[in-house]
């Protein structure tokens, strides 16, 4: 299993669309986790104009992912995808570290 975080082509395209809506040109997609949610950890996703000194920066499908070191520990191996359509869930984290997830699927534990 690759110890990195990857983003699918569709998810990268969608992230670029969101950034364009916000008129942000040079940006990265900040991927992280925070404490909370029923299971203990929830995913965070935001458009960030610049990386921070301790970030791990990963580039794939024409998009930069910014991940802080602590979040990276919980996200290594994750694939970020985008599920569209009427029943689509939007951005989805496929995280091999997640042992349990809560009923609504937005939080997980390792």
């Amino acid at each position, binding site marked *: 299993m690759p110890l990195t975080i990857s983003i699918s082509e569709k998810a990268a395209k969608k992230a670029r669309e969101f950034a364009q809506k916000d008129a942000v040109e040079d940006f990265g997609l900040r991927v*992280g*986790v*925070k*404490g*909370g*949610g*029923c*299971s*203990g*950890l*929830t995913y965070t996703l935001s458009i960030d104009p610049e990386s921070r000194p301790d970030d791990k920066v990963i580039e794939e499908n024409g998009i930069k992912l910014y991940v*802080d070191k*602590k*979040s990276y520990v919980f996200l290594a191996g994750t694939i970020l995808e985008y599920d569209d359509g009427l029943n689509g869930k939007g951005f989805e984290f496929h995280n091999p570290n997640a042992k*349990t997830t*809560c*009923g609504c699927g*937005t*939080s997980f*534990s390792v």
Partner: protein
Amino acid sequence: MQETAVSKTTPLYEAQAKAGAVFAPADGWELPSHFGDTIEEYRAARQGAALVDRSAYGRLRVTGADGLDLLNRLSTNKLIGLTAGEGASTVLTTNKGRIIDLLPVVNLGGELLVVTNPQAAEKVVDWIDLYTFGEDIQVTDITEETALLHVVGPEAAALLGASALSLYHACEVSLGDAQAQAVRADALGATGYDLLVARGQAEEVWNALVHLGAVPMGEDAAEMLRVEQGAPRYGRELSEEFNPLEAGLLPSISFDKGCYIGQEVVVRLNTYNKVQKRLVGIAVKDGSPLPEQRLEVDEKDAGFLTSVVYSPALERALALGYVRTRHASSGQEVCIRSGDGLLQGVIVDLPVEPRA
């Protein structure tokens, strides 16, 4: 050579020794068991004001813009929106909804005061740290640099010269030449105020309160009061073995605040009436059992005891214990397995009120 664990002493050790305290180890600390007359100390708490050293409890100072938000995401009660001078008790829970600690959280304006149970401060700090990612939050253990006194009883507020506060609300009070942060915290189940003071001023505040008429109270009398009031204690009624609903901590749970760690389990247990056992009071008809003894109903296992005291209000032994939910109603007779024999007990409503 075998090492012997040395109990720590609080900043009030000398003052209490001078007042005739008989000390014993409790929770890793050398704490007063009594000051010569346990029943008089108990009566002071019931009828006037008694003074207890709660310095063994952990104190954390939480600063940073995200403190309330993070604690809100990690615990059962709604903390968002607490303004300066307001507070709430909340339960840190695991993702299985089990109790890590029951915490009063008070907004002192610019910083939060979090009081942990004895020996739990490090565990709570580590838990918060585990779930801190990019948040602006600093947690400082101020247990060593402060003392925590507790004034309990119907005269407590008057003695402090303060108007009665709502639960977990705070105000500053002057005692002697010292300043103390007073927080209404019914730690023993009865009306009481925690007083947070700088370590160097602890003895002065203690002396001032005694001068005003507060009666020093030891752990023995405090336990009598606590059990009669049905207030759960960490390590006995509160641990990762239990969830907040079993422990009767409903006032510390918000059911409409949104997600927190363990919320799904706690809400499901409550919604579908799946709480397996309940914390109850058990009056013992004959004799005095030991904690942790098993309970039986119709010769079948029905639970276990967690704390036992002599109750001055009932004039017999009173226990707290966890009983299967279907048996957990007032008036239910239970048998307490005590060695080879059985003692008889009956479930009573808590708090137990003193006889007039």
